[in-house]
């Protein structure tokens, strides 16, 4: 049975209404740019307008009234100290805020227990669960009880989708009457006054093209590359895809992802990449300018972008992951897809093209004189772009077979701990336990070694001299 919907900011089912409460909201907060922070800001505004006394605790200095490092047991202690005296504490829960990264088994154990205890000390705790890994509920995971202890320490948990609710109730054992659905976009207000024509003019977009938009922080799990690949073939039909947002994280995975997006945009003339910080106003202006907002996420719990698209009556195409289906299916004109093929079909149908018109790839055709060289050059060009646009030193423009100086380093397999398996009975379990116990120490080391390998390879390509056009002659002389 589904729990009743409550208004965001009201999220106070079971609480007295009409009274003026002292509320502490715990969240990343502006002017630090953060999606959850922007969401929390709107909730704070709504609560203040309802007459409540609201203060904010943020994990870093900001416009919040309080700030404290909220990671780990010390963070839980800080929350318990600051939250004492408030009638209600609303915690915007995201693993990045409360766990030291990566959230290893040890971190989940210590942090979960500490936060569970802290929640029980405070008057009334509401968790606005933006994300939590449902795999942590695995009963074979020795830390699952700690995570469940934390979640069950809250008086109320609010989520944006029925699927999220099921994760909490069925996975972590949180009593169903404590998990409520809330409307993700209830507090959202428009941030631009521009109409479609003015928005397009200000962004340099053609007035009549069908504009598909992917917007938000550029991260692999957002899957903007999926949309770009699915879009291939639609460019010549009066459509374009704009990918807008900043790469907030500087880790290797994000850098690789950005390089891949650049490579796609470089070879597809109607895929446009706009990397950079986007203000709230410009964010909305992009949505107003778009015809269709594309949410090709690989995994996510819920999407603020979907709500902002709804705010401006822009249809969305979204993948059926996390709670997106629940969130999107109520929006007029929304299309849900299950895979890349479905995504390509939905994009094509949005511009009125036959579904089969979209092709998943724009690799060179097989009609040239030397197909292998062409495809080989394309393979190498894409690989180079994926490495950050580096030229592949030692190779001619046609991609001849001279090895890259970095080739020996790139051939080294990434360092990974051995799989915890064994043919002997019982040993696998012991190895898995050891694996979990040691992961917090080993993971950072292996990550660093792999990063060094990539950096070394990049440096070799970057510093290698360009190919000498006379090398062939020199070889001939010997």
């Amino acid at each position, binding site marked *: 049975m589904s729990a009743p919907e409550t208004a965001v900011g009201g999220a106070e089912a079971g609480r007295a209404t009409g009274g003026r409460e002292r509320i502490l909201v715990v969240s990343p907060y502006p*002017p630090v740019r953060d999606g959850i922070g922007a969401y929390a800001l709107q909730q704070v505004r709504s609560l*203040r307008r309802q007459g409540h006394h609201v203060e904010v605790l943020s994990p870093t200095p900001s416009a919040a*009234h309080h700030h404290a490092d909220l990671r780990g047991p010390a963070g839980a202690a800080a929350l318990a100290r600051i939250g004492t005296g408030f009638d209600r504490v609303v915690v915007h829960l995201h693993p990045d805020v409360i766990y030291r990264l990566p959230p290893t088994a040890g971190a989940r154990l210590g942090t979960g227990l500490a936060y569970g205890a802290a929640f029980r000390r405070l008057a009334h705790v509401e968790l606005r669960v933006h994300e939590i890994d449902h795999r942590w509920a695995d009963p074979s995971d020795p830390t699952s009880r700690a995570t469940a202890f934390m979640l069950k320490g809250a008086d109320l948990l609010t989520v944006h989708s029925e699927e999220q609710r099921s994760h909490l109730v069925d996975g972590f054992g949180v009593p169903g009457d404590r998990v409520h659905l809330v409307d993700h976009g209830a507090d959202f207000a428009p941030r631009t006054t521009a109409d479609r024509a003015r928005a397009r003019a200000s962004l340099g977009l053609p007035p009549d093209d069908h504009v598909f938009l992917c917007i938000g922080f550029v991260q692999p799990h957002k899957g903007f590359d999926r949309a770009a690949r699915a879009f291939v073939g639609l460019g010549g039909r009066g459509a374009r895809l704009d990918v807008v947002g900043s790469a907030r994280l500087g880790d290797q995975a994000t850098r690789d992802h950005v390089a891949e997006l650049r490579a796609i945009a470089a070879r597809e003339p109607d895929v446009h990449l706009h990397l*950079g*910080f986007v*203000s709230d106003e410009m964010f909305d202006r992009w949505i107003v300018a778009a015809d269709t907002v594309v949410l090709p996420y690989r995994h996510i719990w819920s999407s603020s972008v979907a709500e902002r698209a709804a705010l401006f009556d822009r249809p969305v195409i979204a993948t059926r992951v996390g709670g997106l289906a629940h969130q999107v299916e109520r929006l007029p004109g929304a299309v849900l897809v299950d895979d890349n093929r479905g995504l390509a079909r939905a994009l094509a149908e949005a511009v009125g093209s036959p579904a089969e018109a979209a092709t998943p790839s724009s690799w060179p055709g097989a009609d040239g004189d030397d197909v292998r060289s062409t495809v080989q050059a394309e393979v190498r060009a894409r690989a180079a772009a994926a490495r950050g646009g580096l030229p592949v030193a030692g190779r001619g423009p046609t991609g001849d077979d001279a090895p890259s100086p970095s080739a020996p380093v790139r051939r080294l397999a990434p360092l990974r701990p051995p799989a915890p398996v064994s043919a002997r009975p019982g040993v696998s379990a012991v190895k898995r336990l050891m694996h979990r116990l040691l992961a917090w120490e080993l993971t950072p080391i292996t990550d660093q070694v792999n990063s060094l390998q990539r950096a070394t390879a990049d440096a070799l390509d970057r510093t290698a001299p360009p190919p000498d056009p006379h090398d062939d002659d020199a070889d001939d002389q010997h």
Partner: protein
Amino acid sequence: MDARRIAFVPPRYGPDVVGGAEAVVRQVAHGLADRGWEVEVLTTCARDHYTWANVERPGPGLDRTASGAEVHVRRFPMVRDTPGEVRARVEAALATGDVPSLGEQEAWMNDGPRSPELFHHVLDEAERFRAVVVSPYLFWTTFAVGAIAPERTLLRPCLHDEPYARLELFEPLLTGSAGVWLQTDPELDLYRSISTPPAQTAVVGEGVPVPDRYDPEGFRRRHDLGDRPFVLYGGRREGAKGWEGLLDAFADAVRKEDLDLTLVTYGVGEVHAPPDLPGRVVDLGFVDDATRDDAVAAASAYLQPSALESFSRTVMEAWLAGTPVIANGAGDVVRWHIERSGAGLTYDDDVELEQALRFVAEAPDAAAALAAPGRDYVLDHYTWPATLDRMEATLDEWFPA
């Protein structure tokens, strides 16, 4: 929303606040109040931008224009509860040409004085105003408040060509404000070189009050200056304004014993007059507007050593008083003013500065003639009525009631 209600959010506000950008905010607030706007100023309790000490009393207050119109002022406390280590580290990196990461930039912005109560007041009240004017760009108040209601935020950035302006951190403010007021064409050029101005961007300039009268003789008498020729510098005495360099160059020129000039200065900040030149550097401290005007009229030249001016109101005040300007040629804006008006000289190094000083000391009549077109230049371009007309026109166009 009241059709004629507007908010200004400067980091500091009041007659005792030294700072060109802040002074102009007050004058615009007064000008619009005189024209019937309901003006609120939302600011901090700080008066000094070094200490950010909460000197003024928090809460509502009233500031009246000369004609008696009301400007409602609401002050909020500044909070300083961070060690400033990130701020120092990032500034050191910027000084060496490094570009900190976005995360470091955010930490830098928040690792200093902040005003959560001001932020939340605007969060509560922004929709009551037709526009919320934030200025200048570099301060936390502008950065934080400017993001609350971008659809009604009017940015008056006062951009300088400095590393801070090129931080990615400011992109949302620079690209995403509903409207932008700029002071000069060079500021717009700089804006375009840094970012993409919103479509609703206008060079509105700023106004300079035109004094009814000057009393240079009275000024000399009151400050025991006799007939000594002097050059003048007013404002913040600090490195970012070029004060130390100016003082060193002036002292070197004077030490040659044939430069008959005194340097008179008013404003805030340490002067550090060279002890071996007694009486050749005169510090008036903080002065009222009338004293400032009289000093400018009595000076042989006004010195503008700063390369980071977005308008330079003091240069306009000098020209109104018939005084030539000697300015650092590295400053695009002041050089642009001088080239357009023809009422001053620029220098690119200390040697050129010394020669310019010699010019005003040795050829006072020629220096006065040099200044002559300056007054018309200011009256043609930078009077308050014309500036306020432009501002009101943009408000009507960009923020329809």
